Structure formats: structure tokens, C-alpha cells
């Protein structure tokens, strides 16, 4: 295995908060127009009053709510606005939103907090301070009215942007008192008492999304759609073998093609063609002779990687994980044992909008317009690449055409666009990746295998379980300092003992979990649901195998192990009940069940399938239950659950990035298949809110999709399925 590098490429770490200047700017009204930064600048002299930092109220009663998390389809823009509006008690029909830039955030000492949008934190990570932001704005508006009428604030009530004084019958609107309110001191946000969520009138309701209209008529401008005066377009190719280098290219054949302006080196591994349109740039790039140094990984293939990972299943060592009781002896002395090895491959994120970034650089200012999950990480990468201080840079975030983790911490595409733009000072450069480039240069969901062994006593009770996970570490690639003494707990996500985030929902009398790091040369990163995806399959499909060996029903077998985990159990029971577990199924219909936890929320699913004698799998129905504590917009939560089903099924059935000659083999949708309408089951979402914590929504439910479906198919065909994707097991999906 000497071709596989075991240490990751060192990626420069975000050093965002170090030495940043903190210029306060009072009364800045933000208006971001992604198409025209000069216009955005002009709007900063707008006299529209800011009421606290989260709300702007216009004279016509329009309430503008500031949103700093990115919108990539997950609905956070609408959900956050609902939370602010709830406390503000404004007229929901007059809500709009705007987004400060990270440069503006920095100028105000990061008043708006963290802008990163990942880990299902968009709502749960900001709900407290945005609700307080809405509440203080309401207090200021009420105070302004009280001052005008010379009455105590305690005599005033608010509803739908109207302030009323019952004793005198006087009424005014938020818009009318906004200018006076803006001049008042902002109350202490921490002192505000927030509403009991059970009394919510706007939050917690399935209001329509705020951002649908322009998605129905082609008017929404994604990053890929940007047009700017004098703009040129770039098509790039990075060395197809990870770890390789760009040696040279011969531009003589393509530089005379129509529209081509130049062929440039982007960095040590990447070349770009710059032209007046992207199609011309891409067309020229396709014809460009390029010489690569493919480096030490040019012979690596998936079989070698599988061997490398398999070795980690049994290698002796001191590993991250849980050691409770003596699982090895308990299993060795058990009346009956069950063992299995499961595996899952690399996966790409494949958002529908290919990676893109538009950059403009001069020696005095650098800007990017970019679909990013983390505007501040984009700003840091921009400044670093541009060679300019942070305050001379800014980032304009476009709505994202999907992301799923790809457009977050790793800002490789921003660096590329800026490196090109530096070679064309003053000219905006729109860089777009082809789908093939996107498939070839992702930060993939890591490859792994898992060896599990369980012991049963003579009554079929589980007495111990050992689990050895082996595979690539995300931290090793993106955050090496999180690995302590060679131990990486992150890959064991979902098996953790500590409550709150991704706790295992079972109590085993004896338990050993271990993770052996086995890295490869393939870049890896977080992919929607991250490690709960494959870990959910490993645990939940294996538990079904053990239940079967014990001669027990998969639900009752789980319930017996979950008595110390009431929230996990509550959600499992909800899925079982709504999914008709235990009731007779139609002839030929088989059910599977699974539960797991990730991103601070509890999830469970029941799947119903038929499998024909020819191995044609038809997934009829999925019932998914989830408890994220609070649900700000149930209809949008259900959309995330449905989305998790689709992404989870694509991965379960088809998803596989194969390594061949050091590079990824599947380069487009012809070989990297996606779930389509015909394969879509009926999805029923069951919400189980307990109002005592805030969990995530975007990611938690995806991890129960694959195990529930695999367990149903296994029940139908009478044998376990242990290797993803299932297409390699001779099954077809209809």
C-alpha cells in the first residue's frame, strides 16, 4: 500500500478572528444587491431605520429581517424570519429579508454572529439570538409609541405591526414609530423573556417559503447566472489524479479559437481557459493539450483502497471509541454469536448547480460573488488568495443551487477564481466547473468498512457487542488538530455515549467501539448527514441481523435495549405506529425499521418494499419520525425529510465513486446515477416535538433511510445486504 499516502495534504486553517480590525459603523442599513455592488454601497446612505441589528422597519410597515445563514434550499431564510417575526409581532405578509456581507459583519465586530451554514445549525444555532433580536426591536417600537403618547409601555399591546393603547383607543403602526424607535438605546438582549414556543403564532406554522416566486419563472440569479460589465468566463481543469501537478499546456491550438482570451495557470495543479463565454472557454479547454505529473497515486484503485481499509478491521492498536464492560469476553463466552463486515464507498455531493465563483481583483480591493455555505470562510480564503487585508475584501453570497456540505469549509473554488482574476486586474471572472470537474474534485464522503460481532445468551438477549470501524478520517483531511493521540472520535458519530448530538440509543451490557484511521489520497469532507449515514447502516442493519439470530422481532428487540434512551424510543415507537409495524402487510410487501441519532435530533423510519423474483425492488412507502425539539415550519421540515429520503436512496441504491488509476471514474450522471421520480416512494413525515431542546433538521433523518430500506429488502430476500451501493448486489430499482 505504499502508493496510498497516509498523511493528509496540509490545508491552511481558517485564521479568521486573528488580528481583524474592529471598526464600528453606526446605523448602517444594509442592502445587498448581488448584481451591483455600487448600488449596495449607495443604499448604505438610506435613512431606513435599523431597530436593533436584526430588524429594519420601513415607513410602509415592511419589516426587513436580516439573515446571515446561507440559503441552499433548506428553508432557513424563511424559518429564521419566522422566529424574528414571532417575537416582533409584525405582519407576516410584510416581511422581507436581506443579508449582510461578511465584510459588514466584520466591521461590526461580528454582531450577526457565525455565518456558516452546515451541521444542521442554521436554525438551532441562531434561534436564541434572532428571537431576542425580534423581541428587542418590539420593545423599542413599543417604547417609541409610549414616549409619543406619554403612557407606560405596560399599557400597550402589539399585534400584526400595530401598537394599541386600549385605555385611549389609540393605535399606531410600526412604520410610523420606526424612526423614533431607531434612536432609542437597544435593550439588553440577554434580559429579554422569550415566548413559550407552545404559544407561537407565526413560528411553528407551515407558512409558505419567502423565496419561491423567483424559482418558478427563471428570475432567481444563482452564482452561475451572474452577468457583469466586461465579465469574462473561465473553465478549469485540475489534475485528475489527486496529488498530481500541472506540468505544462500548449495554448497554440486554442488561443485562436473564437472568444478565447488566454490560457492561464491557476495554481500548481490547475489550468484555466478564459474566454468571453463559458461555453467557448470549456470548448477550448476540451481541446487543450495538457501535460500532468500524475504523482505517486496514479496507480491507486478502489480494490487497493478496500484492502488498505480491510486491514484496519483487525489491526492491533489503541483506538478511539467506547470501552464499557468487557465486550470481547462477553461475546467470546456467549451462547450464540453473530458477525458481519459492512462497507460503504466514496460519494460525491453533486449539487445541481455546479461549483462556480465570480471574482474581481485589483491591487486595492478584491470581491467574490459565490454560492457558499460559509461566507466568512469564503472571505478568509479570498483575502489569503488575493494578498489583501480582510477589510479590503468582501463576499456577496448568492442563493445556492444545492450544496450538501460541498460549498462549506473547503473554499478551493474561491481560491481558483481569485487566482484567475488576479491575472486580469479589474475584470470580473466567472469561473464555472463542468459536471465532470465537479465529480472529479470533490471532498468525498469517506470510504469505510465496519466489522461487528455480537453475543447472545441462551434466551436471545444481547450480552455484548464489539464494533471496529476502519476507513478514512474527515478530520485528518480538514481539521487534523481534532485528532488527539491518533484517536479520532468524529468518525464514530452516532455511536457516541454523550447525550445531545449523536448518541447511540442502545444500552449494551458490554460494548467496545473502535475506529482505526486508514487514510487515502482521495480528499474527504462532510456530506449531508456525514458519518451518521454509514454508521447508521452498520449499526441498524447489524441489529436486525442480531434480532433475527435471536428469533426476535426487530422492533421489540430494539425496544428492550432502549429503555435508558426515552427520546430515541419515543421516536422509534412513533415511526412504528404510523408505519403500521406489527400489522399484517399486503402479500409480497416487507417492512424494515431503523432508528439513529445525529445533529441533535432523533430519527426513525419504517420502509415498505416488494422485491420481484428478478430482484426488482419497489419501495412503496416510507414513514419517518423525528424529534428536533421544536419545528419552526412543519411543511418545510417535511421537505427536508423528503429530501433526505431522496439523497439517502440515491446513495443506497447507486452511489459509488470508484477510484481507477488514482482518479474518480464516475464523471457524470450517466455513470453516477440519481434517484428519479419513478423510484420515489410515498413519504410520510411524523413530527414528535417535545419542546425541551433545539435539534437539527436538514441532516438527521437521512441516516435512517438506508438502514430501514436495506432491512426491508433483506427481510424480503431472506439474506443480509452488507455492501453499499445495492446495485452491486444484483438488484434493480423500479
Amino acid at each position: 500500500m505504499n502508493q496510498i499516502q497516509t498523511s493528509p495534504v496540509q490545508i491552511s486553517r481558517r485564521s479568521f478572528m486573528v488580528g481583524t480590525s474592529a471598526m464600528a459603523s453606526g446605523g448602517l442599513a444594509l442592502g445587498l444587491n448581488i448584481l451591483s455592488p455600487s448600488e449596495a454601497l449607495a443604499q448604505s446612505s438610506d435613512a431606513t431605520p435599523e431597530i436593533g441589528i436584526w430588524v429594519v422597519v420601513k415607513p410602509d410597515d415592511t419589516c426587513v429581517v436580516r439573515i446571515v445563514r446561507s440559503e441552499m434550499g433548506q428553508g432557513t431564510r424563511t424559518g429564521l424570519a419566522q422566529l424574528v417575526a414571532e417575537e416582533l409581532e409584525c405582519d407576516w405578509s410584510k416581511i422581507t429579508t436581506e443579508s449582510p456581507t461578511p465584510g459588514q459583519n466584520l466591521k461590526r465586530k461580528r454582531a450577526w454572529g457565525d455565518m456558516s451554514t452546515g451541521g444542521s445549525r442554521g436554525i438551532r444555532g441562531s434561534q436564541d439570538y434572532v428571537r431576542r433580536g425580534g423581541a428587542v426591536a418590539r420593545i423599542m417600537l413599543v417604547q417609541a409609541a409610549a414616549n409619543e403618547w406619554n403612557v407606560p409601555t405596560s399599557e400597550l399591546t402589539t399585534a400584526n405591526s400595530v401598537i394599541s393603547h386600549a385605555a385611549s383607543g389609540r393605535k399606531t403602526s410600526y412604520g410610523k414609530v420606526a424612526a423614533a424607535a431607531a434612536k432609542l438605546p437597544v435593550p439588553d438582549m440577554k434580559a429579554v423573556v422569550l415566548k413559550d414556543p407552545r404559544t407561537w403564532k407565526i413560528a411553528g406554522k407551515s407558512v409558505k417559503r419567502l423565496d419561491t416566486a423567483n424559482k418558478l419563472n427563471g428570475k432567481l440569479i444563482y452564482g452561475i447566472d451572474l452577468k457583469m460589465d466586461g465579465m469574462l468566463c473561465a473553465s478549469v481543469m485540475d489534475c485528475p489524479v489527486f496529488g498530481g501537478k500541472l506540468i505544462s499546456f500548449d495554448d497554440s491550438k486554442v488561443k485562436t479559437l473564437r472568444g478565447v482570451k488566454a490560457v492561464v495557470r491557476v495554481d500548481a495543479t490547475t489550468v484555466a481557459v478564459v474566454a468571453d463565454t463559458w461555453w467557448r472557454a470549456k470548448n477550448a479547454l476540451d481541446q487543450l493539450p495538457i501535460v500532468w505529473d500524475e504523482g505517486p497515486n496514479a496507480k491507486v484503485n478502489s480494490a487497493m483502497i478496500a484492502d488498505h481499509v480491510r486491514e484496519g478491521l483487525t489491526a492491533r492498536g489503541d483506538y478511539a471509541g467506547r470501552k464499557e464492560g468487557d465486550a470481547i469476553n462477553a461475546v467470546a463466552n456467549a451462547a450464540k454469536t453473530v458477525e458481519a463486515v459492512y462497507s460503504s464507498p466514496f460519494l460525491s455531493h453533486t449539487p445541481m448547480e455546479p461549483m462556480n465563483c465570480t471574482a474581481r481583483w485589483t491591487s486595492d480591493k478584491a470581491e467574490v460573488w459565490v454560492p457558499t455555505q460559509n461566507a466568512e470562510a469564503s472571505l478568509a480564503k479570498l483575502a489569503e488568495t488575493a494578498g489583501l487585508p480582510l477589510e479590503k475584501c468582501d463576499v456577496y453570497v448568492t442563493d445556492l443551487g444545492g450544496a450538501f456540505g460541498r460549498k462549506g469549509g473547503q473554499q478551493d473554488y474561491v481560491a481558483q477564481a481569485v487566482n484567475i482574476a488576479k491575472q486580469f486586474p479589474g475584470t470580473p471572472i466567472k469561473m464555472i466547473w463542468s459536471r465532470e470537474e465537479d465529480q472529479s474534485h470533490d471532498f468525498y464522503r469517506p470510504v469505510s468498512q465496519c466489522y461487528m460481532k455480537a453475543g447472545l445468551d441462551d434466551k436471545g438477549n444481547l450480552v455484548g457487542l464489539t464494533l471496529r470501524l476502519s476507513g478514512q478520517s474527515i478530520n485528518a483531511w480538514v481539521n487534523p488538530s481534532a485528532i488527539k493521540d491518533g484517536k479520532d472520535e468524529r468518525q464514530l458519530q452516532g455511536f457516541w455515549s454523550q447525550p445531545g448530538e449523536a448518541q447511540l440509543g442502545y444500552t449494551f451490557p458490554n460494548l467496545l467501539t473502535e475506529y482505526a484511521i486508514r487514510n487515502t489520497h482521495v480528499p474527504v469532507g462532510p456530506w449531508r448527514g456525514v458519518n451518521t449515514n454509514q454508521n447508521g447502516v452498520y449499526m441498524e442493519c447489524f441489529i436486525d441481523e442480531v434480532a433475527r439470530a435471536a428469533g426476535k422481532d426487530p422492533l421489540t428487540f430494539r425496544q428492550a435495549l432502549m429503555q435508558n434512551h426515552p427520546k430515541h424510543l419515543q421516536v422509534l415507537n412513533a415511526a412504528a405506529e404510523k408505519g403500521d409495524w406489527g400489522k399484517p402487510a399486503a402479500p409480497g410487501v416487507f417492512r424494515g425499521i431503523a432508528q439513529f441519532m445525529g445533529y441533535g435530533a432523533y430519527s426513525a423510519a419504517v420502509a415498505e418494499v416488494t422485491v420481484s423474483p428478478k430482484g426488482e425492488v419497489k419501495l412503496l412507502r416510507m414513514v419517518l419520525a423525528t424529534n428536533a425539539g421544536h419545528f419552526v415550519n412543519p411543511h418545510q421540515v417535511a421537505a427536508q425529510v423528503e429530501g433526505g429520503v431522496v439523497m439517502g436512496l440515491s446513495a443506497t441504491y447507486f452511489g459509488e465513486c470508484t477510484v481507477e488509476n488514482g482518479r474518480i471514474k464516475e464523471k457524470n450522471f450517466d455513470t453516477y446515477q440519481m434517484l428519479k421520480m419513478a423510484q420515489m416512494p410515498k413519504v410520510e413525515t411524523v413530527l414528535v416535538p417535545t419542546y425541551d431542546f433545539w435539534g437539527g433538521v436538514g441532516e438527521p433523518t437521512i441516516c435512517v433511510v438506508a438502514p430501514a430500506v436495506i432491512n426491508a429488502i433483506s427481510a424480503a430476500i431472506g439474506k443480509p445486504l452488507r455492501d453499499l451501493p445495492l446495485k452491486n448486489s444484483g438488484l434493480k430499482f423500479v
Partner: protein
Amino acid sequence: MYSLNVNGKVQKVDAESEMPLLWVLREVIGLTGTKFGCGIAQCGSCTVHVDGQPVRSCSVPGSAMTGRKIITIEGLSDSSSHPVQKAWAEVDVPQCGYCQSGQIMAAVSLLKRKPKPTNKDIDLAMTNICRCGTYQRIREAIHVAAGTKKLPKSDSGEVAALVQQIKV
């Protein structure tokens, strides 16, 4: 130089004959509502109508479309008034929205051929990829547009389809 009839307007196109219709629309004419997703006619994000038929515009040369009537998402209706766009809004179909231009164009074409499509008809006609996973809502919106389904509404008028809340 050739001419194209796009959204009822005939215009001169100065581009290489092999430039795909998608890129003629996006980069020469300037209509960016039609999206690039794969470039090999697999995902359907670039779906437009050519003489009423759905066509994946990334894989046909613009020059071959002379004399034919091209409709893009921008030309589907004034102010999103097409019944399919209205149904999409009522069901709140889009997540990221990137594929939805193509999905809507494919659905409009289906409903022209089959005004009351069955689920099977929808399965066969709607082969565009949505990575966010809006298929269930697309199916529902097609039925709503066809008039074969009315959305269940809760007391407060919210869309309640397929979401159940357990009181604990």
C-alpha cells in the same frame, strides 16, 4: 449568423453553429432561467420547449433550431400565471430551485399531452433530476395543476399534506 424564435421574438444569433442551444440562450441571448446541470442530456435542468416538445437544450446545437418555436421558462407566462407555476407555488415545491425551470417545462409538456396524468404517466414523463428531493411535491403539484387533486388545508389554511404531528 442565424436567427432563432425565442419566446415569440425572432432574434439574430452570432455564434458558432455547434454552440448548444442552452449556451446560446444563456450567454448569447442572456436568458439564464434555463440551467446547466450536466451537459449530456441526463439531468433535464436545461429543458425548454421546441415546437411544444420538451428538449434538453444542452445537447442540441442552437443553429439546428432555426425556424422552430422555442419557449423557455421566461416565456412560459406573464407573471407566473401558468397553472403549473401556480400549482408549484401552492404546493411550495422548490427547495434550492435550481432544477425547477426544467421540471416545470417538463410538467407543462406532460400536461399538454395528458391533461389528467396518472402517477404512471408522471413517472414516465418526469425524468429530470432533483438533488434536493422535491419529487413528491412535484407529483402533487402536477395533480393540482391537472385539477385532479385539491390540497388538504388545516384550519389555519396551512398546507397539511403528509405531515403529522404527534402531541407529547
